[in-house]
């Protein structure tokens, strides 16, 4: 269960949002919407613990995430604006390292399967030779290996994706929610997966 209590965020002396509270239980889907600069990214970074809120707190299963630290970050997958993949590694190597960082070692076949699921067939090609959309797919492939990470925090996951990849992502999110996972995602477009809406537009 993810709880946000009276969150307030200030960036560069400007108050982006305040008194933001919500509770997300198992199987919950939350969509954060708002104009550019309304604080969607900041909210997601606060939720994953990268950014301390100016006021308020975030709790995971009743405990403050600032105290849980690694115990909390081990439970979540955060996919931000930056692709978080290395240009000089292959898609499979990138995925392998991302999994090992969260403490899981997977065999080659699982990694290849996850990449194929997200439509990356050229497994031995360096990421720098991939297009923007393919990089995005390679980054999202982590979601296919997310057993043990109940919480997904996705920042503009649909950016740079084509219709096929967007559908794959929607299916993955729907399946995760059906399994009892929690998903918070931000988007400024309409999306088919819906979910409870939090608007940051004042």
């Amino acid at each position: 269960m993810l709880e946000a209590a009276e969150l307030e965020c200030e960036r560069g002396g400007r108050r982006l949002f305040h008194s933001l509270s919500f509770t997300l239980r198992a199987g919950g889907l939350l969509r954060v919407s708002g104009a550019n600069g309304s604080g969607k990214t900041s909210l997601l970074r606060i939720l994953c613990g990268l950014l301390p809120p100016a006021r308020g707190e975030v709790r995971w299963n009743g405990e403050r995430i600032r105290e849980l630290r690694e115990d909390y970050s081990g439970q979540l997958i955060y996919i931000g604006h930056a692709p978080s993949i290395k240009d000089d590694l292959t898609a499979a190597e990138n995925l392998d390292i991302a999994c090992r960082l969260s403490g899981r070692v997977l065999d080659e076949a699982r990694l290849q399967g996850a990449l194929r699921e997200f439509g990356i067939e050229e497994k031995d090609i360096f990421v720098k030779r991939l297009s923007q959309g393919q990089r995005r797919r390679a980054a999202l492939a982590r979601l296919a290996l997310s057993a043990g990470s109940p919480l997904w925090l996705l920042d503009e996951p649909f950016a740079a994706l084509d219709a096929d990849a967007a559908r794959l992502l929607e299916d993955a999110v729907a399946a995760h929610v059906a399994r009892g996972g929690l998903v918070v995602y931000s988007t400024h477009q309409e999306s088919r997966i819906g979910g409870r809406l939090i608007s940051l537009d004042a």
Partner: protein
Amino acid sequence: MLEALRAIVARDLLLALRRSSDVGTALLFFVIVASLIPLGVGPEPNLLRAIAPGVIWIAALLASMLSLPRLFAADHADGTLEQMLLGAAPLGAVVAAKVLAHWLVTGLPLAAIAPVIALQYDLPAPLFGVLAVSLLLGTPVLSLIGAIGAALTLGLRGGGALLALLVLPLCVPVLILGAGSVDMAAAGQGAATHLMLLGALLLAAAALAPWAVAAAVRIALE
């Protein structure tokens, strides 16, 4: 957690291998700086022998500065540093793993090649070992202290110059002890005291620097 740390070291070594020019630059810089000095001061053997430890140590210090800005900058730019912060291992340990990988590709080759450089200065052969050991103990301290500077200047424009200004003064004790150990051995007084002090510096830096770096990285990512 150990798996995560091993993965970080392996990844950074693999990346260094794939971008070997980055690593080669620092090593080549070391060789060139250390080779220019004899050309500049002239071929007087006694003079060269006397300045050798200091010159080689200063060249090593400058060479290790050269590679520091890249320690976190690339990971910061592509978002992988954020992912490390959200990984299963504490950030202090992650940072220590990154510094270890950095030292393996910068400091270790310097220590290995230093005896060859020392030949140019006609340093007596028995001192080669002391020089190499002093660099083996000293360069990890340079990497650890340098990592604090690299994390503090993360995301700043012109961070490279500022980084050198921040870190070089902090490296003075390492320089004095490192060059001093070879001088002491040359004077026949034994280098043990200096080397043990260097070792103590290394232990202190290894215990404290990662947490300082972790705090600086957290601030840079906010």
